[in-house]
């Protein structure tokens, strides 16, 4: 078999030698555009798992590579004058130049023909090979020749970065964050030989322009970075290798092979450098391709097998890389976090590493996180900065103070799964006992399901309400029972269903109008919720007065019943939420149009309730943070609303999303609301409560320690 490999990088060389090893009779040629001793970049990183696969694939090169490796287990985060140290990660790296050298030598030993300094302009003719392996990198000539088949999608990152080196010994993967008059710069630095380290410096476009780096020569760029990192470099010079400030290109291709041509490594896919996987993925591709060729005599089957095996793996890495890239591109959101939390947030950015993982890798770091979290909680409760305690519980056991109310821990139980019908809004004995039983489970806060402020504000005729004096007595018994039998606090969620009212209980689906006995619905605009729904009457100002007063009356009743926390429902397409979204609010008066107008009535209700709700008790809002529909409310709007609510005395935002319209399609899954909570909490600087199907304490501890929320709804399986 005659095999032509374009590209003499790690992927091409490694693939060539693995195939040759299995099939010494194959005629293999590697064509490389650069000379044999030229290379770009500095060090490349591998995980211990990748090293294991090298060991199985080719022992001689594994031995040489591992002899030359720098292996370390720590990640340091340098931020605002502190260094946060986390261990147990096991990362290895090697100079790219050395890696190529080892692989080239092995290729030569196995009898592979290598042509260096050989630029390929036009593809070789199909007659010249039985298999063409395109390992020619991100700018692959082969891929570009068959664009319509491989269907590449190239997306440029928003940030600028430059890849530099330094004669500097590092003992950890080091993230450095530096703020100066031009903006924020972050550095990803790691050692790759006994004396040298890689320094990747990254910043947003604005900082880059402010610093004049668009006009800077190579030497000027180096000088700027050296000054920026003066403290970290301690006099050591940065080295450039024809390095430039570029945007990271993420490449995805639809298929990886076509007839007798196959793409390998960067020619097929790239993943943002911040998860350090480019060379690793490329070399793993090489292993998979060589092994598929060994197992299947039929070329088409082998190439299929290779693609089927590698594509899902690569896509997972690309997803993690994308999240990591997005994290660094939006790092400014998190600059308000204290160093420990900032570091924890950074380490858990891609969702692949959790609180338990970090604790397992480095128990001391885990303890430090717990102590830090408990200390913050204690300061916020006592107002006194006593020294941190040695003994500290996991984050979910830290108390939280909201006004004068202290929740004993960060776990919320809510949204009881049982359907317990009630009549005329009146909580029954069964309903009450359900809540009291729920309260026995150790949560810090119990939250009710939506409770109607009026009989016409109910979602279904079987919903509980708080609009009649008898209701007060029933709720009061529930609250007393929770208070006397547990340490938990109890919160009430007040709601007016708006255009989602007058529907059947949700046992057989959502938003199905009653078969009989419908009441008329109100909404900001006469738009039915589903095609089968009743058309609601647009609210007149006098109706709005009444609804506001109903909320106020219900809030007074909630105080009478002695609830600890009150929550107003601004989400899921109910009445107040339907004012906020342009999809459901098409009014032309002062309550529709701009965000400022749309928020006016919900805010009026909030203010009226805040005015009579006791000063020492917290008031929360359950807020839609995204409609998940084009043209709807988006997280930027929600952050703006959260800021306004905070100014008006809101103490907590529960983050919800979707259901503004019946066709919203959230990407459901565990923790699907967490990124939205992260935005609201860190951009509007307000405590948040988040659910979104969190089923383990590990997920909750990860969210809390990273500062993505302050309270979590626990929904164990």
């Amino acid at each position, binding site marked *: 078999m005659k095999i032509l490999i374009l590209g003499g990088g790690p992927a091409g060389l490694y693939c060539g030698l693995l195939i040759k090893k299995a099939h010494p009779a194959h005629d293999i040629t590697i064509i490389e555009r650069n000379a044999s001793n030229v290379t770009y970049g500095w060090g490349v990183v591998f995980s211990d798992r990748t090293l294991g696969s090298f060991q199985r694939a080719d022992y001689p090169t594994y031995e040489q590579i591992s002899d030359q490796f720098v292996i370390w287990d720590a990640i340091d985060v340098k931020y605002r004058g502190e260094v946060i140290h986390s261990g147990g990660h096991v990362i290895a790296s090697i100079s790219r130049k050395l890696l190529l050298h080892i692989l080239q030598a092995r290729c030569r030993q196995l009898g592979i023909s290598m042509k260096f300094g050989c630029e390929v302009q036009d593809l070789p003719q199909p007659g010249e090979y039985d298999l063409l392996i395109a390992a020619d990198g991100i700018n692959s000539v082969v891929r570009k020749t068959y664009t319509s088949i491989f269907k590449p999608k190239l997306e440029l990152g928003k940030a600028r970065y430059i890849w530099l080196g330094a004669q500097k010994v590092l003992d950890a993967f080091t993230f450095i964050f530096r703020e100066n008059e031009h903006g924020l710069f972050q550095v990803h630095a790691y050692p790759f030989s006994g004396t040298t380290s890689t320094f990747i410096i990254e910043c947003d476009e604005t900082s880059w322009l402010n610093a004049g780096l668009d006009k800077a020569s190579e030497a000027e760029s180096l000088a700027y970075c050296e000054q920026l990192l003066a403290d970290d470099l301690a006099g050591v010079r940065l080295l450039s290798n024809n390095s430039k400030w570029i945007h990271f290109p993420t490449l995805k291709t639809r298929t990886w092979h076509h007839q007798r041509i196959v793409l390998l490594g960067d020619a097929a896919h790239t993943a943002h450098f911040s998860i350090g996987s480019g060379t690793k993925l490329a070399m793993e591709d090489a292993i998979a391709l060589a092994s598929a060729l060994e197992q299947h005599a039929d070329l088409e*089957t082998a190439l*299929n*097998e290779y*693609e*089927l095996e590698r594509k899902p793996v690569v896509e997972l890495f690309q997803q993690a890389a994308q999240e990591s890239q997005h994290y660094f591109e939006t790092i400014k959101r998190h600059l308000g976090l204290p160093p420990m939390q900032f570091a924890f947030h950074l380490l858990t950015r891609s969702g692949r590493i959790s609180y338990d993982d970090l604790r397992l890798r480095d128990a001391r770091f885990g303890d430090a996180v717990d102590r830090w979290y408990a200390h913050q909680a204690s300061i916020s409760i006592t107002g006194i900065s006593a020294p941190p305690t040695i003994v500290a519980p996991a984050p979910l056991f830290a108390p939280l103070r909201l006004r004068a109310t202290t929740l004993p821990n960060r776990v919320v139980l809510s*949204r009881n*799964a*049982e*359907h317990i019908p009630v009549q005329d809004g009146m909580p029954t004995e069964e309903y009450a006992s359900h809540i009291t039983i729920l309260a026995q489970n150790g949560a810090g806060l119990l939250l009710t*399901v939506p409770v109607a402020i009026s009989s016409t504000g109910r979602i279904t005729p079987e919903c509980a309400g708080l609009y009649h004096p008898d209701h007060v007595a029933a709720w009061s018994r529930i609250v007393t029972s929770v208070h006397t039998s547990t340490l938990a606090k109890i919160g009430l969620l007040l709601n007016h269903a708006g255009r989602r009212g007058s529907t059947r*209980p*949700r*046992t*057989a*689906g*959502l*938003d*199905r109008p009653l*078969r009989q006995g419908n009441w008329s619905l109100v909404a900001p605009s006469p738009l039915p919720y*589903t*095609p*089968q729904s009743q058309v609601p009457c647009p609210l007149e100002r006098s109706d709005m007065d009444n609804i506001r007063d109903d909320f106020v009356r219900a809030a007074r009743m909630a105080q009478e019943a002695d609830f600890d926390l009150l929550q107003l429902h601004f989400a899921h397409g109910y009445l107040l939420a339907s004012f906020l979204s342009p999809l459901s609010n098409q009014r032309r008066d002062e309550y529709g149009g701009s965000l400022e107008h749309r928020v006016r009535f919900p805010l009026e209700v909030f203010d009226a309730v805040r005015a009579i709700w006791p000063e020492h008790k917290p008031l929360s809002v359950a807020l839609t943070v995204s409609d998940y529909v084009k043209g709807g409310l988006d997280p930027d709007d929600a952050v703006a609303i959260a800021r306004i609510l905070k100014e008006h005395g809101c103490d907590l935002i529960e983050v919800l999303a*979707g*259901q503004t319209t*019946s*066709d*919203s*399609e*959230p*990407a*459901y*899954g*565990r923790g*699907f609301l967490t990124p939205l909570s992260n935005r609201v909490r860190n951009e509007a600087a307000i405590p948040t409560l988040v*659910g*979104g*199907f969190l*089923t383990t304490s590990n997920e909750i501890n990860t969210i809390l320690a990273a500062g993505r929320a302050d309270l979590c709804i626990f*929904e164990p*399986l």
Partner: protein
Amino acid sequence: MNIGVGLPTGIPGANGQLVIEWARRADAGSFSSLGVIDRILYDSYEPLTALAAAAAVTQRVRLATTIIIAPLRNTTLLAKTASSIDALSAGRLVLGLAIGARRDDYAAAGIDYRSRGKHLTEQLSTLRTLWEDESFGPRAARLGGPPLLIGGLSDQGFARVARYADGYVHGGGPPRAFARAADKARAAWRDAGRPGKPLLWAQGYFALGTTAIESGYGYMKNYYAFTGPFAEKIAAGLLTTPQAIAQFIRGYKEAGCDELVLFPTVPDITQLEQLAAVLNELDI
């Protein structure tokens, strides 16, 4: 977790007698349900017709479509057929619906492929309305019609489960793939404020006995040939030993599956007997 068995209606060469005898014996044995799958341009039975026949010769087993491609069918007729089977079987129908992924079936039925998701959404809301209409009969055993399951892996699919259905039916694959999908269904369900839990159904393929294994693989590669290279991967999931079946069942059970339907790949009644023997041995 309940274990059901698929009817051999999707396997080329399965004759009518075999299908009926299969249904009868499964009902006499310990299986909890009989499943059928759907395909038009293939040597396979129309699934609802097959279930109607099975209804006549069975007393006990649930009759489940896992799944049928709803948009290919006229909605009113689908409602009528489903409520008829439900009435004929004294409420044993479980109706699993999805949009499928085969363009050729859509083309053959003269239905637009691209709008199939929206089409299904409209159908789901119409089905319930028809079943609840007092002048529309026969009445399904349960007010509001037979249990509805929805299949598929898209975000829209899970939103539909929570909005319209009683549960989710998984298309196949290893237990961990099911576990991820089940989490999405549960997350959607809770977010929608639905009481209780979504029903979770799933399926797998088996071939038992040395002579059957090869034809089992052959059938799967052929049936899934429309997925291109993935047919190999899907076929690799074929359960061919009692050990594989035991592990598969355990995996699904741990992931919270309510009912797992094992489909045959060889049109031979001894496959049913062998599966029953394996389950008996496993004390399932």
